[in-house]
C-alpha cells in the first residue's frame, strides 16, 4: 500500500470541500472495499 494522508474534517461541509479539491481523495467508511482494494493495489489514494 502506498503511503497516504488521512484527514478527519470537523463537519460535513469541510469533508466535502476537502475531497472536492484534492485529487485522488476519497471518503472512507468502514473500510470495505477501499482498504482491501488498496492492499491489493487495485485502488490507489493519496
Amino acid at each position, binding site marked *: 500500500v*502506498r*503511503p497516504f494522508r*488521512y484527514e478527519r474534517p470537523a463537519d460535513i461541509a469541510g469533508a466535502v470541500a476537502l475531497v472536492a479539491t484534492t485529487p485522488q481523495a476519497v471518503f472512507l467508511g*468502514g*473500510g*470495505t472495499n477501499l*482498504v*482491501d482494494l488498496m492492499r491489493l493495489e*487495485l485502488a490507489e489514494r493519496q
Partner: protein
Amino acid sequence: VESTNPLPPPVLVPISVRINGRERSLVVDTRMSLLDLLRERLGLTGAKKGCDHGQCGACTVLIDGRRANACLALAVAHQGAEVVTVEGLVETGELRRLARAFIVHDAFQCGYCTPGQLCSAVGALREVEAGWPSAATCDGEGEGADVILEEVRERMSGNICRCAAYPNIVAAIAEAGW
C-alpha cells in the same frame, strides 16, 4: 496498477485509543490496520489474522460496542474509539457463559477462528437485545428452536470456520444466548 511514481514517505499520525479499558497513545502509519496495531504494537494476539481482507471474521473485535473486522479498520480512523478484544471480554467476565458453552459443545477444532467467533457472538447477542432485525427473521414468521438456530447461522455468517465446526458453534451460541 503499475505506478511509476517513487513511493512518498510514510505518513505518521499520533492517536489515542481506549483498548480493553486502557488508554493507549501511539504514533501510527496511516496504512496500519487496527488488527496490526493490536497484534504487532500492543501484543494483543487474541484477534487473529485470517484473510486480512474482511472475508473470514477471525479478526472480529468490538469497536464502540459493535463488532467489526479489525483488518479493514484503519487504526488512524479510530482516534478516540473504545475497542474491546477477546482478551478484554475475558477480563470483564463477559465471556464466561459463552466460553463454557463453546467447551461443552466442542465448538471448534483448530481454534483459530474462535476469538473472532466469540467477539462476534457477543456483538450478535447485543444486536438481538437491541431489537435489530436479521434476514432470517425479518418476515416475523415462525418461532421455536429451528428459528433460533437459523437466527444464529444468519447473524454469525460473517465468521468462517475452515474446520467446519459450524453445527457445534451454532449450538453453543444458541444455548448461551437465546
